[in-house]
């Protein structure tokens, strides 16, 4: 069962002589529970692809279908609501809200829906991310690794269709990076959470079921590492 379908996705920045094609007719599908790594050199179009899959940027042409819903046919507000309920995003620089506690940051997508998450679910995520002893702390009081774990917790709180992680270990030391990868792979393996990971680190990419290699805005390789 496919949860994500990217069809002929093209993104061109600028105009005239300054035109840059960041993505050039990219197409692929991701199945439920799959762990896909997208690799490529700097400037290859990885981040553009991630922004489009996450619905935070709009394409020049092509479409992204999440759980059967073409997201770019939605209005801006509909897309925002869809994103908070169906897509979990983890950034390299955590992007937590500095004046919200750990709990509040994790619950944020639910709170934006004006609902409180199920207490058991919250407790499970807090437990899973290993920040249960820091639930009332502010992000500024946490280490980088802990902040990133909170960010993963926030992405998972709504059981999204897929989890998008953009260089989640890029800003961490090797130990913290390893822990984050363990957390993400555990979510993928134990909870059958679809995971799309953007990285330029080959070692990390090798943990994935499938590796898409992107270069000059095109997918040049699609390798299945394990079925």
């Amino acid at each position: 069962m496919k949860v994500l379908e990217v069809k002929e996705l093209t993104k061109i920045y600028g105009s005239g002589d300054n035109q840059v094609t960041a993505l050039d007719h990219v197409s692929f599908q991701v199945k439920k529970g799959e762990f896909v790594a997208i690799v490529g050199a700097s400037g290859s179009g990885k981040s553009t692809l991630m922004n489009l899959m996450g619905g935070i940027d709009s394409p020049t042409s092509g479409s992204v279908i999440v759980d059967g819903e073409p997201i770019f046919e939605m209005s801006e507000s509909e897309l925002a609501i869809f994103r908070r309920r169906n897509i979990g995003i983890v950034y390299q620089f955590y992007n937590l809200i500095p004046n919200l506690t750990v709990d509040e940051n994790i619950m944020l997508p639910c709170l934006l829906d004006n609902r409180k998450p199920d207490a058991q679910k919250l407790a499970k995520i807090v437990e899973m991310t290993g920040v249960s002893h820091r639930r009332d702390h502010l992000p500024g009081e946490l280490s980088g690794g802990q902040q990133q774990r909170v960010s993963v917790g926030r992405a998972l709180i709504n059981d999204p269709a897929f989890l998008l992680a953009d260089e989640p270990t890029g800003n961490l030391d090797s130990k913290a990076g390893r822990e984050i990868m363990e957390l993400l792979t555990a979510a993928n393996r134990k909870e059958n959470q679809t995971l799309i990971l953007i990285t330029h680190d080959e070692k990390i990419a090798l943990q994935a079921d499938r590796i898409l290699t992107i270069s000059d805005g095109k997918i040049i390789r699609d390798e299945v590492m394990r079925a």
Partner: protein
Amino acid sequence: MNILFSFACKQLKRKKGRSVITAAAIALSAALLTAVVNFVASGRAMLVNFLGKDYGLYGGAYMMILLVPAVFLAALIIAMSVIVISNAFRLSANERISQFGTLKCVGATKKQIYQTIMYECVLLCAVAIPLGVLAGYLLSFLGIGIVNLYMEELNVLVRSMMRQVNFALSFVFSPIALLVSTVISLGTALFAAMLPARKAMRISALDCLRNGGETDTSGYKRTRITIDAKGKVEYQLARKNVSSYRKRMHSAVTAFSISIMLFITLGGLQEIAGGIQDYITMDYGYSVIADYTSNFKNTVNPKTGRRQQECAFPITAETAEEITAKLREYEGTDIYGDGQDYTTYVALLGEQDLTEEMRQAIAVDEGQVETVLEVERIILDEKHYGELCEQAGIAYGGTILLNDYHYNDNGTERHIVPLTEAVTTLELEKADGSRDTVQIDSVLTLEEIPKQLLYPNTNPIRLIVPSTGMTVRGYNWLANPADEDGFMAYAKDVLEGYFPQNGLDYGEAGYTSRVFGAQDFARIMNIAIILAAVFLYAFVFLLGLIGVLNVISTVSFQIKSRAREFAVLQSVGMPSESVRKMLTVESVLCAGKALVVGLPIGTAIVLLMARCVKILFPIPFQMPWAAVVITILLSFLVMLTTVRISVRALKKQNIIETIRN
């Protein structure tokens, strides 16, 4: 608690300094609006008390006198408040733009971003508006107290000239006024916050994340200023920065310019008021004036179609002389009596009768044969008439021409000689067409005319005539008694004997007779100017304070948000002293920019006002230099102090930490 509401609360707590400044701006705005609305309510109550419920015949005009300045002041307050409050929320939004990006990425809608900022505004309004309204009532209360301090003296002065006048401004609490000021204040703050909120909600999630720090995502402005080794680098950098950050400083500079403009305008207004006061304050060398004026109506003569004046109760020269004699009976008091008839005659003058100056002044056409000019016949008491005849070298009973005409030549008072030496007789004509020829026995020039007869608003042809058989519309008795109060009481009794008022009000008996101090008009005007100056300066000061709060908030935010830039400059070898110099130059340039806009606009408004006033009064234009100097000094002082304080906070920061963060 709603998460957006919680965001707003936390943001306000986190940025206490700016929250306090923004709340102060909202409170000041509410206080000023409340004071204006409450003054209208109190003024209305005074008018109802004085004129009756419908304000009498001129109800509409009185209401306009109350409402027009109120609307003008309210519009100024609202404009200033919108600029300042909007800027405060823009700064708050800028600071959190990357947070908004994160929120958008995790699924916050545009509306939710908008609501976050609006909740902040609502929270601040909930605290600031009640405080502001209270402060507004306190201001009104104090203001009314100050007015009433002067009102008592004003009533004493006015009562001596007009009967049954008792102005008193009382503090009025009107629920409608309270509602109006609260609604306007809330509306102003919400509208002001709405502008940056709408801007923030429109920025895409990606732009929020990329441009953390500015709702204006167009980035830094490219400037033509280049940094080279020709000048001191801190000065060049400062110039470049002011040019690059002009959009960010726009609101602070605008609010500053408005404050400067208002201050200059007010200074100019005070100069003009002083000029008018000096002009209308005539010193005849007498301290008490008694006068009689008959009511009159202007009609058109049915035979000739000419305008004529019909007096209800003209005073005869004999009666005037009798009163003069009685007033002289008061111990040690001489009386100068004069009466004027402005409307009975016009003079028919030939081409050779008028001097060239006069022809130009009254715009006589080339080749115009006959010119008709209004004649003013003046009678004096017998003693002073005799003395004037003697001075003119003629026998008692002759006619003397006061050969001086003064007029307002576009703001300059000019005296010219109206008639040529050839004029020895004058052909006078009444409204009914009948004519009389008057022999001129002597001519007095400007230097020879007694100062009592150099009052404003005279006719072009002025004749001192013998009083025998004359009646005039009005008569004045000027005195310089040793005991002013005693003489005034005595003179009132004398006049009451001849012209009983029977408790009737001004003009209701068909005439009016008054006894008042010669300087009373000047004192009334002086009180009016003091009151207006106190209120307008207080108003401009408070409005300026809103502008200054905006400058402090913007400058300190800009400096804090540029901390990384300063740290980078220091890391590449720029001493902290140079950074301070650079910021000082930037602040001087910003203050200069505000002055370059505010000073000329303020001066232009003063010039425009002076031009309008010149139509009525011969007052030369006086540049309000004191206000200009104070404004320039204050502008630089505010900017430099704010920069100095902000830079001091920067010094405590670690360069490496700042760059990393």
